[in-house]
Every structure is written in C-alpha cells, then in structure tokens.
C-alpha cells in the first residue's frame, strides 16, 4: 500500500466513453498483482470528495494503466486529464486473482463484460508469463463497447467475442457464449476468472459450479477509503455456514465463486 503522485504518460479515448490512462508510478507498478486496484483522487477539491477505485488494467515496468468509462462526476473529471498532469493515487490495494502453480501448462478462461474487462488484460499477461494459457471471452453491449479488443488481438490471445445486439461476434452475454463453448467441450478449463455486470458473473458462477470448475470473481462497489477503514463497500460472503458482510476493498475485490452470496435477480 503506497501513496504516490503519478504522472499521466498516455491518454487514449475510445468509443462509448472509454478512456485509457497510463501512469508512471514505479513503486506501485512493481508491487501490483492482477486484480488489485488503485484509489485515485480526481482533483484537489472537496468535490468530488472521495477517491475513485480503478482496477489495474495493464502493468509495464514502471507504469500502470487504468481503463474506465465516463460514468459520473469523478470519472468525467478524470477523463479530461492530460499527459503530464499528476494524479494522487493509493495502491496497489486489495487482494487480486490467485493462480496455483498446478495451473502451469493448463488452460483457463477469462470472462469479461463491459468495463469489467479492465483487470483481465493484466491477468492475461501475467498468466502467460507463468505459462498458463488464457482464453478470453469478451462481451459488450455493442461492438463499440469492446474498447480493448484490438489489444487482445495484437497480443494473439485466443478470443471469443459477444455483443448483446449481435453487432460483433456471438449475440448475447459473454456468459451465454461461455456456456455454448463449455457444452461444445473443446476447452477443458482448469479455472475461470470473471469480472463484469452482476447477471453475467452470476451466470458464470452457476456454469462453473455445475461443472466443478473453480472460479474467481472481481467485485465492484462504491468505496469510501479503499483501505479497510470505513466498512462502506461490503458484500455478502460465506464464512463457515454463515454469511457476513465482508469488505470488498480489503478481503477482495477478488473472491472465490464458492464464497460469494449472489444477489437474487430483481425482475
């Protein structure tokens, strides 16, 4: 956990309000693990008051990248930042994805929906380094909602694409595409990692559970502090035979599928 002023070294705007910001932050980059996040102060003013949490999208030698959408006041301000400006960031925070040594040489599936793809690129890179083979299932609402598709292509990752409207790839949720592929049985994954909208993750959890495939999920929440002090970002997590409100920032944001109590679908 470090607090470092970090210079913006790159800024890319994508369709559908996505922005990629590259930050020079050597100490944080060195410590970062896939699935961990940063708390970013978007300005020096009391409004917006709180830092904003972003998972680490990519890591370079002395750099990290964040991927986000202009969704509210904080992200809109952040999106206007330019190269050369400095951001006050805390990180790396939380517990990221884990990968056992026994996964070496095996295939794992990464399922990302919308901006939930953000931490999975860093994860895919790290898995490769460890000689674990990732296959990526990447879903968006439309073809514009897949801002880093090219990046995966360029790095020659195995990729399955879905869109809700069918404008690119499979028509439907990434979890539905995953289901089709699992039924087809071509890939026998040793592990599944997912991040995205709640219904997608819940569906992935059910698919993984039914096949006895261990799975990990990166959860999202509004956060007060990011360091476990305010207890504002809780989620129902199984502990023993009971559920407990666990802090996403400290015990997560990545949890095992078997730990998470999924919220009932509200119709």
């Amino acid at each position, binding site marked *: *956990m470090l*607090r470092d002023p970090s210079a913006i070294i790159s800024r890319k705007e994508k369709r559908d309000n996505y922005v990629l910001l590259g930050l020079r932050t050597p100490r944080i980059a060195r410590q970062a693990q896939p699935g961990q996040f940063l708390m970013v*102060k978007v300005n020096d003013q*009391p*409004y*917006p*008051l*709180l*830092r904003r949490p972003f998972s680490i999208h990519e890591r370079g030698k002395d750099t990290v990248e964040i991927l986000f959408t202009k969704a509210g006041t904080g992200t809109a301000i952040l999106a206007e930042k330019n190269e050369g400006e400095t951001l006050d960031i*805390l990180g790396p925070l939380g517990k990221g994805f884990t990968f056992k040594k026994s996964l070496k040489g095996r295939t794992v599936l990464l399922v990302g929906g919308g901006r939930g793809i953000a931490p999975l690129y860093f994860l895919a890179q790290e898995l490769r380094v460890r000689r674990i083979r990732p296959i990526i299932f990447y879903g968006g609402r439309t073809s514009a909602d897949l801002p880093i598709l090219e990046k995966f292509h360029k790095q020659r990752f195995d990729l399955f694409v879905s869109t809700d409207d069918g404008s690119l790839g499979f028509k439907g949720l990434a979890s539905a595409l995953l289901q089709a592929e699992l039924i087809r049985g071509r890939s026998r994954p040793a592990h599944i990692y997912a991040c995205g909208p709640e219904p997608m993750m819940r569906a992935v959890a059910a698919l993984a559970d039914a096949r006895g495939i261990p799975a990990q999920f990166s959860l999202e*929440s*509004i*956060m*007060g*502090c990011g*360091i*476990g*002090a*305010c*207890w*504002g*970002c*809780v*989620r129902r997590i199984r502990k023993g035979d009971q559920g*407990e*409100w666990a802090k996403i920032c400290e015990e997560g944001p990545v949890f095992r599928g078997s730990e998470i109590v999924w919220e009932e679908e509200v119709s």
Partner: protein
Amino acid sequence: MSVPKPDLTTDLGFLRLRNPVLVASGTFGYGLEFAPFINLNKLGGIVVKGLYLHPRPGNPPPRLAESASGLINSIGLQGIGVKAFCEKILPQLEKTKTPLIVNVCGETDEEYAAVIDFLNTQEQIAAFELNISCPNVKKDGFCPALDTEATFSLVQLAKRSSRRPVITKLSPNVTDIVEIALAAEEAGSDAISLVNTFLALAVDVETRRPKLANVFGGLSGPAVKPLALRMVYQVAKAVKVPVIGMGGIMTGRDAVEFLIVGASAVEVGTANLVDPDATVRIIGEIEDYCRANKIKKVEEVIGTLQS
C-alpha cells in the same frame, strides 16, 4: 529561520495531548489500517471504531452515497466486538504511544456499561468516548443523544462503571444541542465531543429509490463544517468541561477554526478516508498557522472568537 517550534500540546484536563488532532471514530478503523501510511505516534489521539459487546453485522449495502462535498454513510457500526478487539487489535497497538480512546456503543444502557466494564482492565485505553449519537442503528435515526434525560442517565451509568475519563459524543440532530451537552456535563462527563453525522437522505432519480439500503444515513465531510462549528461554539460557551470539535475538517485551517470557537482539540474524520495521511498533514498545517501568526502555544488560540 530561528523561529521556535510552536507548542502544540493541548489539555483535556484528564489527558494532555501531544497536539490537538485526534481521529474520529469510524473513519480510522481500529488504527492499524493507517499504519502503512502514517506514524501513529504523531497523532494527538486515536479514537477507534465503535465497539459493542459482541460482533455486529452492520447494515446491508449500499452503505455509502456521495453528495456535494459530503459523504452519507449507513455502516451501522459493523464491528468485531470487545473480545476480539482486546485479543487481536490491542496487542498490535501496544507500542503506539498515542492515547487510545475507545468509542463505546450499546443497544441498551446496560450494554454500554458492560462494554466499559470489559475494557476497564485494559491499561492501554486512556479514555472512553460514549457513542450515544450514531444515527444508523435505530429506526429513523433514534439515539440517546436526542433526549436530555436519556443522555443524563446513560452518562451517569457510564461514569459509575468507568475507571477512565468519559467523553460524551453528541448528535447534531437536535433542536438545542446545548441542553444535551449540559445534561451530559451534569451527569459527570469529563469532556464533550461533537458533532456526529447529520441524519440525511440521498435519492436515485432513475430508480426513485434511496441510494442507501438503510434509507437514511449520516452526512459528514466539508459540507457540514459550518453547522458543526456553530454547534461547537454554542456548546463550548455553555459547558465548563473541555470540548472536542469535529465536522468536515480537511485542513489545518479548518481545525484552527474549531479551536477558535472553543474546542480544546479536534477529531478528523472523513478526511482520513480521502487521504490516509490527512491527520499528519493537518498537524503540520496547524504548526504552520502558529508560526505564521507568531503563536507560541496553540492553546492561546482556543476560544478566542471575537464577537
């Protein structure tokens, strides 16, 4: 360059503090969360998260909503209880020299007394802060601090139970905070701290639902500072015991405002969530203020509002 270092010590009567900056309960966890970012020994005091006798589940999420320069929370005092606190947390704070103040909670007056009774034997604890003012644990924000009689009887019981000084933390959600402060003082409270959060509501216009699962929450942050200052001023004028002021302090100058209106010390709250090292920065800024204004002792500032 040879300006002498200003004396930042301040006196609560029962406790002399290294400087007037404490942390507000609920914004600093159990203290250890901040050890990676600051030297805990630099603080005037640490007020740990409110403790009940037993572990407490807290409220369902969402528990946070941001407002203009403010934060609305309904954590509901989720916590580990006194036993785990003594076994798991206190030993880790053993080397910390900063006075440790435990924020005491209870569903009933008896539970407050039981928490105090359990913690009385812990040498590390310098004082208790009675949390009679959390708006998030009872229906519609009810708490003892909304009523003079409930305040008086609870403080009296706590004083009888306690082998440590007792600070009573007041709610701002009352018509006349002075009468509550006087009730706490009359019941023997050794100091008064104020204010807890302001009962508040945030609405999502798309869903037309409250943003918090608990519907109401408590507002803190810079948005409440002028309201808090007014109340601290009123209370400090009315009571003889020391007053600890809080409400939206983000900078050293904010802290000095509370001292000027009569607080002997301050608690920094929401700022800790934004900047884990806010307290240490604020202490430095108070020192800068003293230097710039040729103030040798920060205590010279207390209660000096010209009106």
